[in-house]
Protein backbone atom coordinates (compact mmCIF):
# COMPACT_ATOMS: atom_id res chain seq x y z
CA UNK A 1 0.00 0.00 0.00
CA UNK A 2 1.24 3.48 -0.86
CA UNK A 3 1.28 5.37 2.46
CA UNK A 4 1.61 8.79 0.78
CA UNK A 5 -1.48 8.17 -1.36
CA UNK A 6 -3.40 6.95 1.70
CA UNK A 7 -2.35 10.11 3.56
CA UNK A 8 -3.43 12.24 0.56
CA UNK A 9 -6.94 10.74 0.67
CA UNK A 10 -7.06 11.29 4.44
CA UNK A 11 -5.61 14.80 4.21
CA UNK A 12 -8.22 15.86 1.65
CA UNK A 13 -11.05 14.84 3.96
CA UNK A 14 -9.40 16.51 6.95
CA UNK A 15 -8.87 19.79 5.06
CA UNK A 16 -12.55 19.81 4.13
CA UNK A 17 -13.50 18.97 7.73
CA UNK A 18 -11.30 21.84 8.92
CA UNK A 19 -13.08 24.27 6.55
CA UNK A 20 -16.46 23.15 7.93
CA UNK A 21 -15.33 22.69 11.52
CA UNK A 22 -17.71 25.16 13.18
CA UNK A 23 -20.73 23.84 11.27
CA UNK A 24 -19.63 20.28 11.86
CA UNK A 25 -19.22 20.74 15.61
CA UNK A 26 -22.55 22.54 15.81
CA UNK A 27 -24.16 19.60 14.00
CA UNK A 28 -22.46 17.11 16.31
CA UNK A 29 -23.72 19.02 19.36
CA UNK A 30 -27.47 19.16 18.67
CA UNK A 31 -28.54 15.51 19.02
CA UNK A 32 -26.53 14.59 22.14
CA UNK A 33 -27.56 17.84 23.80
CA UNK A 34 -31.24 17.13 23.14
CA UNK A 35 -30.91 13.52 24.32
CA UNK A 36 -29.21 14.64 27.51
CA UNK A 37 -31.85 17.27 28.21
CA UNK A 38 -34.84 15.11 27.25
CA UNK A 39 -33.83 11.69 28.54
CA UNK A 40 -31.15 12.39 31.06
CA UNK A 41 -31.47 15.75 32.75
CA UNK A 42 -35.28 15.83 32.83
CA UNK A 43 -35.49 12.36 34.35
CA UNK A 44 -33.10 13.31 37.11
CA UNK A 45 -32.69 10.48 39.62
CA UNK A 46 -36.05 8.90 38.75
CA UNK A 47 -34.34 6.12 36.78
CA UNK A 48 -31.11 4.47 37.95
CA UNK A 49 -29.09 1.58 36.54
CA UNK A 50 -26.51 -0.23 38.68
CA UNK A 51 -26.27 2.75 40.99
CA UNK A 52 -25.74 5.25 38.15
CA UNK A 53 -28.10 8.04 37.15
CA UNK A 54 -29.73 7.73 33.74
CA UNK A 55 -27.56 10.61 32.52
CA UNK A 56 -24.43 8.66 33.51
CA UNK A 57 -25.89 5.60 31.78
CA UNK A 58 -26.78 7.62 28.71
CA UNK A 59 -23.43 9.33 28.05
CA UNK A 60 -21.47 6.11 27.21
CA UNK A 61 -24.42 5.02 25.03
CA UNK A 62 -24.35 8.31 23.17
CA UNK A 63 -20.58 7.93 22.77
CA UNK A 64 -21.07 4.50 21.18
CA UNK A 65 -23.88 5.79 18.97
CA UNK A 66 -21.97 8.88 17.84
CA UNK A 67 -18.82 6.89 17.07
CA UNK A 68 -21.05 4.80 14.80
CA UNK A 69 -23.11 7.53 13.13
CA UNK A 70 -20.29 10.02 12.65
CA UNK A 71 -17.83 7.44 11.33
CA UNK A 72 -20.54 6.12 9.03
CA UNK A 73 -21.11 9.72 7.93
CA UNK A 74 -18.00 9.49 5.74
CA UNK A 75 -20.28 7.63 3.31
CA UNK A 76 -22.20 10.85 2.70
CA UNK A 77 -19.01 12.78 2.01
CA UNK A 78 -17.82 10.09 -0.39
CA UNK A 79 -21.16 10.09 -2.17
CA UNK A 80 -21.22 13.85 -2.53
CA UNK A 81 -17.66 13.68 -3.92
CA UNK A 82 -18.71 10.85 -6.23
CA UNK A 83 -22.12 11.88 -7.54
CA UNK A 84 -22.08 15.69 -7.32
CA UNK A 85 -18.48 16.87 -7.44
CA UNK A 86 -17.06 13.93 -9.46
CA UNK A 87 -13.91 14.09 -7.33
CA UNK A 88 -13.92 10.34 -6.87
CA UNK A 89 -12.83 10.13 -10.52
CA UNK A 90 -9.62 11.90 -9.57
CA UNK A 91 -8.80 8.94 -7.32
CA UNK A 92 -10.01 6.38 -9.87
CA UNK A 93 -7.72 7.83 -12.53
CA UNK A 94 -4.74 7.95 -10.16
CA UNK A 95 -2.18 5.17 -9.70
CA UNK A 96 -3.27 4.28 -6.18
CA UNK A 97 -4.31 0.93 -4.78
CA UNK A 98 -7.75 0.21 -3.37
CA UNK A 99 -6.06 -0.34 0.00
CA UNK A 100 -4.62 3.19 0.00
CA UNK A 101 -7.95 4.75 -0.93
CA UNK A 102 -10.05 2.74 1.53
CA UNK A 103 -7.54 3.24 4.37
CA UNK A 104 -7.50 7.00 3.83
CA UNK A 105 -11.29 7.26 3.84
CA UNK A 106 -11.66 4.93 6.85
CA UNK A 107 -9.13 6.96 8.83
CA UNK A 108 -11.03 10.13 7.93
CA UNK A 109 -14.29 8.54 9.08
CA UNK A 110 -12.69 7.47 12.36
CA UNK A 111 -11.38 11.01 12.88
CA UNK A 112 -14.91 12.38 12.48
CA UNK A 113 -16.10 9.82 15.01
CA UNK A 114 -13.42 10.83 17.52
CA UNK A 115 -14.28 14.50 17.10
CA UNK A 116 -17.93 13.75 17.85
CA UNK A 117 -16.95 11.80 20.99
CA UNK A 118 -14.96 14.77 22.28
CA UNK A 119 -18.04 16.96 21.75
CA UNK A 120 -20.24 14.53 23.69
CA UNK A 121 -17.79 14.19 26.56
CA UNK A 122 -17.56 17.99 26.75
CA UNK A 123 -21.37 18.29 26.84
CA UNK A 124 -21.52 15.51 29.43
CA UNK A 125 -19.01 17.42 31.51
CA UNK A 126 -21.33 20.41 31.31
CA UNK A 127 -24.07 18.22 32.81
CA UNK A 128 -21.69 17.12 35.55
CA UNK A 129 -21.02 13.66 34.14
CA UNK A 130 -17.45 12.54 34.71
CA UNK A 131 -16.72 8.87 34.08
CA UNK A 132 -13.62 6.74 33.65
CA UNK A 133 -12.16 7.42 30.21
CA UNK A 134 -9.20 5.02 30.24
CA UNK A 135 -7.34 3.34 27.34
CA UNK A 136 -9.89 0.49 26.99
CA UNK A 137 -12.68 3.07 26.67
CA UNK A 138 -10.85 4.67 23.75
CA UNK A 139 -9.90 1.31 22.24
CA UNK A 140 -13.57 0.31 22.09
CA UNK A 141 -14.40 3.64 20.42
CA UNK A 142 -11.62 3.22 17.88
CA UNK A 143 -12.74 -0.29 17.00
CA UNK A 144 -16.38 0.79 16.71
CA UNK A 145 -15.38 3.69 14.46
CA UNK A 146 -13.26 1.34 12.37
CA UNK A 147 -16.25 -1.02 11.93
CA UNK A 148 -18.65 1.67 10.76
CA UNK A 149 -16.20 3.74 8.71
CA UNK A 150 -15.25 0.55 6.82
CA UNK A 151 -18.93 -0.33 6.33
CA UNK A 152 -19.54 3.23 5.12
CA UNK A 153 -16.76 3.14 2.51
CA UNK A 154 -17.92 -0.24 1.20
CA UNK A 155 -21.55 0.81 0.91
CA UNK A 156 -20.61 4.18 -0.61
CA UNK A 157 -18.87 2.27 -3.42
CA UNK A 158 -21.85 0.00 -4.06
CA UNK A 159 -24.74 2.48 -4.06
CA UNK A 160 -25.83 3.97 -7.37
CA UNK A 161 -27.17 7.28 -6.08
CA UNK A 162 -27.22 9.54 -3.07
CA UNK A 163 -30.83 8.53 -2.40
CA UNK A 164 -29.76 4.88 -2.05
CA UNK A 165 -27.28 5.96 0.61
CA UNK A 166 -30.01 7.69 2.63
CA UNK A 167 -32.11 4.53 2.45
CA UNK A 168 -29.26 2.43 3.80
CA UNK A 169 -28.75 4.85 6.66
CA UNK A 170 -32.45 4.68 7.52
CA UNK A 171 -32.61 0.89 7.41
CA UNK A 172 -29.21 -0.01 8.89
CA UNK A 173 -27.86 2.75 11.07
CA UNK A 174 -30.99 4.30 12.61
CA UNK A 175 -32.43 1.00 13.97
CA UNK A 176 -29.02 0.06 15.31
CA UNK A 177 -28.71 3.42 17.05
CA UNK A 178 -31.87 2.73 19.02
CA UNK A 179 -31.49 -1.01 19.60
CA UNK A 180 -27.76 -1.31 20.23
CA UNK A 181 -27.76 -0.58 23.95
CA UNK A 182 -27.60 3.18 23.61
CA UNK A 183 -30.68 4.17 25.60
CA UNK A 184 -31.48 1.06 27.66
CA UNK A 185 -29.73 -2.08 28.91
CA UNK A 186 -30.28 -4.83 26.35
CA UNK A 187 -30.54 -7.30 29.25
CA UNK A 188 -34.04 -5.95 29.84
CA UNK A 189 -35.21 -7.11 26.42
CA UNK A 190 -37.00 -10.47 26.02
CA UNK A 191 -34.53 -13.29 25.45
CA UNK A 192 -35.20 -13.60 21.71
CA UNK A 193 -34.80 -9.86 21.19
CA UNK A 194 -31.66 -9.82 23.35
CA UNK A 195 -30.18 -12.57 21.18
CA UNK A 196 -30.98 -10.61 18.02
CA UNK A 197 -29.49 -7.32 19.18
CA UNK A 198 -26.30 -9.15 20.16
CA UNK A 199 -25.77 -9.66 16.44
CA UNK A 200 -25.36 -5.89 16.10
CA UNK A 201 -21.80 -4.58 16.45
CA UNK A 202 -23.08 -1.49 18.25
CA UNK A 203 -24.44 -3.64 21.10
CA UNK A 204 -20.92 -4.90 21.78
CA UNK A 205 -19.47 -1.41 21.46
CA UNK A 206 -22.00 0.01 23.91
CA UNK A 207 -21.29 -2.80 26.38
CA UNK A 208 -17.53 -2.28 26.24
CA UNK A 209 -17.67 1.51 26.30
CA UNK A 210 -20.18 1.58 29.20
CA UNK A 211 -18.30 -1.02 31.23
CA UNK A 212 -14.99 0.85 30.95
CA UNK A 213 -16.67 4.20 31.60
CA UNK A 214 -18.13 2.78 34.83
CA UNK A 215 -14.71 1.49 35.84
CA UNK A 216 -15.67 -2.17 35.31
CA UNK A 217 -13.75 -4.79 33.42
CA UNK A 218 -15.09 -4.79 29.84
CA UNK A 219 -16.09 -8.04 28.09
CA UNK A 220 -13.16 -9.24 25.96
CA UNK A 221 -15.60 -10.79 23.52
CA UNK A 222 -16.89 -7.31 22.62
CA UNK A 223 -13.43 -6.25 21.42
CA UNK A 224 -12.98 -9.45 19.45
CA UNK A 225 -16.37 -9.10 17.77
CA UNK A 226 -15.66 -5.48 16.84
CA UNK A 227 -12.20 -6.31 15.49
CA UNK A 228 -13.46 -9.24 13.44
CA UNK A 229 -16.42 -7.28 12.08
CA UNK A 230 -14.16 -4.35 11.23
CA UNK A 231 -11.70 -6.57 9.35
CA UNK A 232 -14.55 -8.17 7.35
CA UNK A 233 -16.10 -4.79 6.47
CA UNK A 234 -12.69 -3.38 5.51
CA UNK A 235 -12.02 -6.36 3.26
CA UNK A 236 -15.43 -5.93 1.63
CA UNK A 237 -14.72 -2.22 1.11
CA UNK A 238 -11.44 -3.08 -0.66
CA UNK A 239 -13.35 -5.20 -3.16
CA UNK A 240 -16.27 -2.79 -3.44
CA UNK A 241 -13.99 -0.05 -4.87
CA UNK A 242 -13.76 -2.00 -8.15
CA UNK A 243 -17.56 -2.08 -8.34
CA UNK A 244 -17.65 1.73 -8.48
CA UNK A 245 -16.24 1.62 -12.04
CA UNK A 246 -18.87 1.60 -14.81
Amino acid sequence: MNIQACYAVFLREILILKRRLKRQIAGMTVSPLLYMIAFGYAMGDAVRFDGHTYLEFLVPGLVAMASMTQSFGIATDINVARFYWFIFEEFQAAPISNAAYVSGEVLAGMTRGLLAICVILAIGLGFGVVLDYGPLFWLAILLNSFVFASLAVGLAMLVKSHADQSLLTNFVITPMAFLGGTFFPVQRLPEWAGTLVKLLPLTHASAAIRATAFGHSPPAMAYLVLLATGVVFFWLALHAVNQARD
Partner: protein
Amino acid sequence: MISVRGLKKYYAKTEALAGIDLEVAAGELFAYLGPNGAGKTTTIRILTGLTRLSAGQASLNGHDIEKQPLAAKRQCGLVPQQINLDSELTVGENLDIHGRIFGMPQALRRQRTARLLDYVELAERRDSLVKQLSGGLKRRLMIARALLHNPRILFLDEPTVGLDPGIRRRIWALVKRIQKDGTTIFLTTHYIEEAEFLADRVAFIDRGRIVAVDSPAALMGRMGSWAIDQVGDQGMQTSYFKSREEARSMAAGQETEFTLRRVNLEDAFLALTGKRVK
Protein backbone atom coordinates in the same frame (compact mmCIF):
# COMPACT_ATOMS: atom_id res chain seq x y z
CA MET B 1 2.06 6.18 -27.37
CA ILE B 2 -1.63 5.19 -27.33
CA SER B 3 -2.57 1.88 -28.89
CA VAL B 4 -6.15 0.60 -29.01
CA ARG B 5 -7.30 -2.67 -30.59
CA GLY B 6 -10.89 -3.87 -30.95
CA LEU B 7 -12.15 -1.84 -28.00
CA LYS B 8 -15.76 -2.57 -27.14
CA LYS B 9 -18.04 -1.40 -24.39
CA TYR B 10 -21.55 -2.50 -23.56
CA TYR B 11 -23.84 -0.90 -21.00
CA ALA B 12 -26.32 -3.72 -20.39
CA LYS B 13 -27.37 -4.53 -23.97
CA THR B 14 -26.47 -1.13 -25.39
CA GLU B 15 -23.31 -1.06 -27.47
CA ALA B 16 -21.42 2.14 -26.63
CA LEU B 17 -18.21 1.21 -28.47
CA ALA B 18 -18.34 -1.23 -31.36
CA GLY B 19 -14.67 -2.13 -31.80
CA ILE B 20 -12.34 0.85 -31.83
CA ASP B 21 -8.85 0.63 -33.36
CA LEU B 22 -6.47 3.55 -33.18
CA GLU B 23 -2.83 4.50 -32.79
CA VAL B 24 -1.63 7.85 -31.50
CA ALA B 25 2.06 8.69 -31.92
CA ALA B 26 4.25 10.36 -29.30
CA GLY B 27 3.89 14.14 -29.37
CA GLU B 28 0.78 14.02 -31.54
CA LEU B 29 -2.38 16.03 -30.86
CA PHE B 30 -5.17 13.63 -31.73
CA ALA B 31 -8.76 14.84 -31.78
CA TYR B 32 -11.77 12.60 -31.41
CA LEU B 33 -14.70 14.30 -33.07
CA GLY B 34 -18.30 13.20 -32.93
CA PRO B 35 -21.79 14.14 -31.77
CA ASN B 36 -22.99 13.69 -28.19
CA GLY B 37 -23.41 10.01 -27.38
CA ALA B 38 -21.01 8.85 -30.11
CA GLY B 39 -18.64 7.17 -27.63
CA LYS B 40 -15.98 9.87 -27.14
CA THR B 41 -16.16 10.09 -23.36
CA THR B 42 -16.54 6.32 -23.01
CA THR B 43 -13.24 5.85 -24.88
CA ILE B 44 -11.43 8.32 -22.62
CA ARG B 45 -12.98 6.83 -19.49
CA ILE B 46 -11.77 3.37 -20.47
CA LEU B 47 -8.27 4.57 -21.34
CA THR B 48 -7.92 6.41 -18.03
CA GLY B 49 -9.24 3.59 -15.86
CA LEU B 50 -12.63 5.07 -14.93
CA THR B 51 -14.65 2.51 -16.88
CA ARG B 52 -14.08 -1.18 -17.53
CA LEU B 53 -13.76 -2.31 -21.13
CA SER B 54 -16.00 -5.14 -22.36
CA ALA B 55 -13.59 -6.45 -25.01
CA GLY B 56 -10.39 -5.55 -26.80
CA GLN B 57 -7.17 -4.12 -25.44
CA ALA B 58 -5.43 -0.81 -25.02
CA SER B 59 -2.05 0.38 -23.84
CA LEU B 60 -0.56 3.71 -22.84
CA ASN B 61 3.15 4.11 -23.56
CA GLY B 62 3.43 0.31 -23.69
CA HIS B 63 1.51 -0.38 -20.46
CA ASP B 64 -1.64 -2.46 -20.87
CA ILE B 65 -4.52 -0.66 -19.14
CA GLU B 66 -6.01 -3.92 -17.80
CA LYS B 67 -2.88 -5.89 -16.94
CA GLN B 68 -0.76 -2.97 -15.64
CA PRO B 69 -3.39 -0.42 -14.58
CA LEU B 70 -1.23 1.52 -12.12
CA ALA B 71 1.71 1.82 -14.55
CA ALA B 72 -0.71 2.87 -17.32
CA LYS B 73 -2.30 5.50 -15.08
CA ARG B 74 1.13 6.97 -14.29
CA GLN B 75 1.51 7.78 -18.00
CA CYS B 76 -1.52 10.01 -18.23
CA GLY B 77 -3.21 13.11 -16.93
CA LEU B 78 -6.95 13.59 -17.29
CA VAL B 79 -9.08 16.69 -17.65
CA PRO B 80 -12.63 15.32 -17.52
CA GLN B 81 -15.66 16.99 -19.01
CA GLN B 82 -17.21 17.95 -15.68
CA ILE B 83 -15.42 20.23 -13.25
CA ASN B 84 -14.11 17.83 -10.61
CA LEU B 85 -12.17 20.10 -8.31
CA ASP B 86 -12.57 20.31 -4.55
CA SER B 87 -14.45 23.58 -4.36
CA GLU B 88 -13.92 23.92 -0.60
CA LEU B 89 -10.15 23.67 -0.95
CA THR B 90 -7.80 26.30 -2.31
CA VAL B 91 -6.12 26.18 -5.71
CA GLY B 92 -2.82 25.20 -4.04
CA GLU B 93 -4.44 22.52 -1.88
CA ASN B 94 -6.10 20.91 -4.90
CA LEU B 95 -2.72 20.65 -6.62
CA ASP B 96 -0.98 19.46 -3.47
CA ILE B 97 -3.45 16.60 -2.94
CA HIS B 98 -3.05 15.56 -6.58
CA GLY B 99 0.74 15.57 -6.27
CA ARG B 100 0.59 13.43 -3.14
CA ILE B 101 -1.75 10.93 -4.83
CA PHE B 102 0.79 10.57 -7.61
CA GLY B 103 3.59 10.03 -5.08
CA MET B 104 5.47 13.24 -5.79
CA PRO B 105 7.97 14.33 -3.11
CA GLN B 106 7.28 17.65 -1.39
CA ALA B 107 10.07 19.65 -3.08
CA LEU B 108 8.95 18.51 -6.53
CA ARG B 109 5.29 19.24 -5.71
CA ARG B 110 6.16 22.79 -4.73
CA GLN B 111 8.36 23.37 -7.75
CA ARG B 112 5.84 21.95 -10.26
CA THR B 113 2.92 23.74 -8.58
CA ALA B 114 4.66 27.12 -8.87
CA ARG B 115 5.64 26.43 -12.48
CA LEU B 116 2.24 25.21 -13.59
CA LEU B 117 0.32 27.99 -11.88
CA ASP B 118 2.51 30.41 -13.82
CA TYR B 119 1.94 28.35 -16.97
CA VAL B 120 -1.86 28.59 -16.71
CA GLU B 121 -1.70 32.16 -15.37
CA LEU B 122 -3.17 31.32 -11.98
CA ALA B 123 -0.17 32.08 -9.75
CA GLU B 124 -1.94 34.94 -7.99
CA ARG B 125 -4.94 32.73 -7.19
CA ARG B 126 -2.97 30.03 -5.39
CA ASP B 127 -4.64 30.71 -2.03
CA SER B 128 -8.13 31.35 -3.44
CA LEU B 129 -10.86 28.84 -2.73
CA VAL B 130 -11.80 27.01 -5.92
CA LYS B 131 -15.45 27.97 -5.48
CA GLN B 132 -14.40 31.60 -5.99
CA LEU B 133 -12.99 30.89 -9.49
CA SER B 134 -14.85 31.37 -12.77
CA GLY B 135 -15.54 28.44 -15.12
CA GLY B 136 -12.58 29.31 -17.35
CA LEU B 137 -10.17 29.55 -14.42
CA LYS B 138 -11.40 26.24 -13.06
CA ARG B 139 -10.77 24.63 -16.43
CA ARG B 140 -7.23 26.04 -16.48
CA LEU B 141 -6.66 24.76 -12.97
CA MET B 142 -7.82 21.31 -14.05
CA ILE B 143 -5.29 21.38 -16.88
CA ALA B 144 -2.55 22.42 -14.45
CA ARG B 145 -3.56 19.62 -12.10
CA ALA B 146 -3.51 17.05 -14.89
CA LEU B 147 0.01 18.16 -15.87
CA LEU B 148 1.39 18.34 -12.32
CA HIS B 149 2.88 14.84 -12.29
CA ASN B 150 4.41 15.43 -15.75
CA PRO B 151 2.37 12.85 -17.69
CA ARG B 152 3.44 11.61 -21.12
CA ILE B 153 -0.19 11.71 -22.33
CA LEU B 154 -2.85 14.30 -21.58
CA PHE B 155 -6.51 13.36 -22.04
CA LEU B 156 -8.80 16.34 -22.54
CA ASP B 157 -12.49 15.48 -22.59
CA GLU B 158 -14.41 18.39 -24.14
CA PRO B 159 -12.02 20.89 -22.51
CA THR B 160 -13.83 24.02 -23.68
CA VAL B 161 -17.46 22.97 -23.40
CA GLY B 162 -19.58 25.72 -21.87
CA LEU B 163 -16.84 28.36 -22.08
CA ASP B 164 -17.25 31.63 -23.93
CA PRO B 165 -15.30 32.08 -27.20
CA GLY B 166 -12.57 34.30 -25.73
CA ILE B 167 -11.75 31.85 -22.95
CA ARG B 168 -11.98 28.95 -25.40
CA ARG B 169 -9.22 30.51 -27.51
CA ARG B 170 -7.00 30.97 -24.44
CA ILE B 171 -7.45 27.28 -23.63
CA TRP B 172 -6.57 26.40 -27.24
CA ALA B 173 -3.36 28.41 -26.99
CA LEU B 174 -2.52 26.60 -23.76
CA VAL B 175 -3.20 23.19 -25.32
CA LYS B 176 -0.94 24.02 -28.27
CA ARG B 177 1.80 25.07 -25.86
CA ILE B 178 1.47 21.82 -23.90
CA GLN B 179 1.87 19.83 -27.11
CA LYS B 180 4.87 21.91 -28.11
CA ASP B 181 6.46 21.03 -24.78
CA GLY B 182 6.34 17.35 -25.77
CA THR B 183 3.11 15.97 -24.32
CA THR B 184 0.93 13.67 -26.42
CA ILE B 185 -2.64 14.97 -26.36
CA PHE B 186 -5.85 13.03 -26.89
CA LEU B 187 -8.75 15.44 -27.11
CA THR B 188 -12.46 14.85 -27.53
CA THR B 189 -14.65 17.59 -28.87
CA HIS B 190 -17.82 18.27 -30.74
CA TYR B 191 -16.58 21.71 -31.76
CA ILE B 192 -15.54 21.58 -35.41
CA GLU B 193 -13.28 24.62 -35.21
CA GLU B 194 -11.53 23.20 -32.13
CA ALA B 195 -10.54 20.02 -33.95
CA GLU B 196 -9.55 21.97 -37.09
CA PHE B 197 -7.40 24.43 -35.19
CA LEU B 198 -5.71 22.07 -32.75
CA ALA B 199 -5.40 18.59 -34.19
CA ASP B 200 -2.62 16.93 -36.14
CA ARG B 201 -5.06 14.10 -36.87
CA VAL B 202 -8.78 13.74 -36.35
CA ALA B 203 -10.85 10.60 -35.86
CA PHE B 204 -14.55 10.83 -36.67
CA ILE B 205 -16.57 8.69 -34.31
CA ASP B 206 -20.24 7.91 -34.77
CA ARG B 207 -22.38 5.39 -32.88
CA GLY B 208 -19.34 3.77 -31.30
CA ARG B 209 -17.40 3.33 -34.53
CA ILE B 210 -14.49 5.26 -36.02
CA VAL B 211 -15.54 6.16 -39.54
CA ALA B 212 -12.41 8.02 -40.65
CA VAL B 213 -8.97 9.02 -39.36
CA ASP B 214 -6.75 11.54 -41.08
CA SER B 215 -5.32 15.04 -40.86
CA PRO B 216 -7.95 17.81 -40.85
CA ALA B 217 -6.70 19.02 -44.24
CA ALA B 218 -6.95 15.56 -45.79
CA LEU B 219 -10.43 14.93 -44.36
CA MET B 220 -11.68 18.27 -45.62
CA GLY B 221 -9.86 17.81 -48.92
CA ARG B 222 -12.04 14.79 -49.68
CA MET B 223 -14.90 17.23 -50.19
CA GLY B 224 -13.04 19.89 -52.15
CA SER B 225 -11.98 23.30 -50.88
CA TRP B 226 -15.06 25.50 -51.19
CA ALA B 227 -18.73 25.01 -50.43
CA ILE B 228 -21.95 26.78 -51.29
CA ASP B 229 -24.90 26.54 -48.91
CA GLN B 230 -28.35 27.22 -50.33
CA VAL B 231 -31.69 27.07 -48.60
CA GLY B 232 -34.30 25.63 -50.90
CA ASP B 233 -37.63 23.82 -50.69
CA GLN B 234 -35.89 20.71 -49.39
CA GLY B 235 -33.93 22.50 -46.67
CA MET B 236 -30.25 23.36 -46.67
CA GLN B 237 -28.30 21.99 -49.59
CA THR B 238 -24.53 22.18 -49.87
CA SER B 239 -22.43 21.84 -53.02
CA TYR B 240 -18.65 21.36 -52.98
CA PHE B 241 -16.01 22.69 -55.35
CA LYS B 242 -12.27 22.33 -55.88
CA SER B 243 -11.68 26.04 -56.33
CA ARG B 244 -13.29 29.34 -55.43
CA GLU B 245 -13.59 30.22 -59.10
CA GLU B 246 -15.47 27.02 -59.85
CA ALA B 247 -17.86 27.71 -56.97
CA ARG B 248 -18.40 31.30 -58.08
CA SER B 249 -19.15 30.36 -61.65
CA MET B 250 -21.74 27.85 -60.47
CA ALA B 251 -23.27 30.39 -58.09
CA ALA B 252 -23.44 33.05 -60.80
CA GLY B 253 -26.38 31.31 -62.44
CA GLN B 254 -28.37 30.90 -59.22
CA GLU B 255 -31.39 33.01 -58.31
CA THR B 256 -31.67 31.87 -54.67
CA GLU B 257 -29.50 33.31 -51.90
CA PHE B 258 -26.37 31.36 -51.13
CA THR B 259 -23.36 31.42 -48.85
CA LEU B 260 -19.90 30.76 -50.19
CA ARG B 261 -17.48 29.40 -47.59
CA ARG B 262 -14.47 27.15 -47.11
CA VAL B 263 -15.09 23.44 -46.57
CA ASN B 264 -14.86 22.44 -42.89
CA LEU B 265 -14.66 19.20 -40.94
CA GLU B 266 -18.39 19.11 -40.47
CA ASP B 267 -18.82 18.75 -44.24
CA ALA B 268 -16.53 15.73 -44.20
CA PHE B 269 -18.35 14.32 -41.17
CA LEU B 270 -21.73 14.86 -42.83
CA ALA B 271 -20.59 13.15 -46.00
CA LEU B 272 -19.34 10.11 -44.10
CA THR B 273 -22.13 9.70 -41.55
CA GLY B 274 -25.10 11.51 -43.01
CA LYS B 275 -25.41 13.65 -39.87
CA ARG B 276 -23.99 16.80 -38.39
CA VAL B 277 -21.56 16.77 -35.45
CA LYS B 278 -23.59 19.05 -33.19
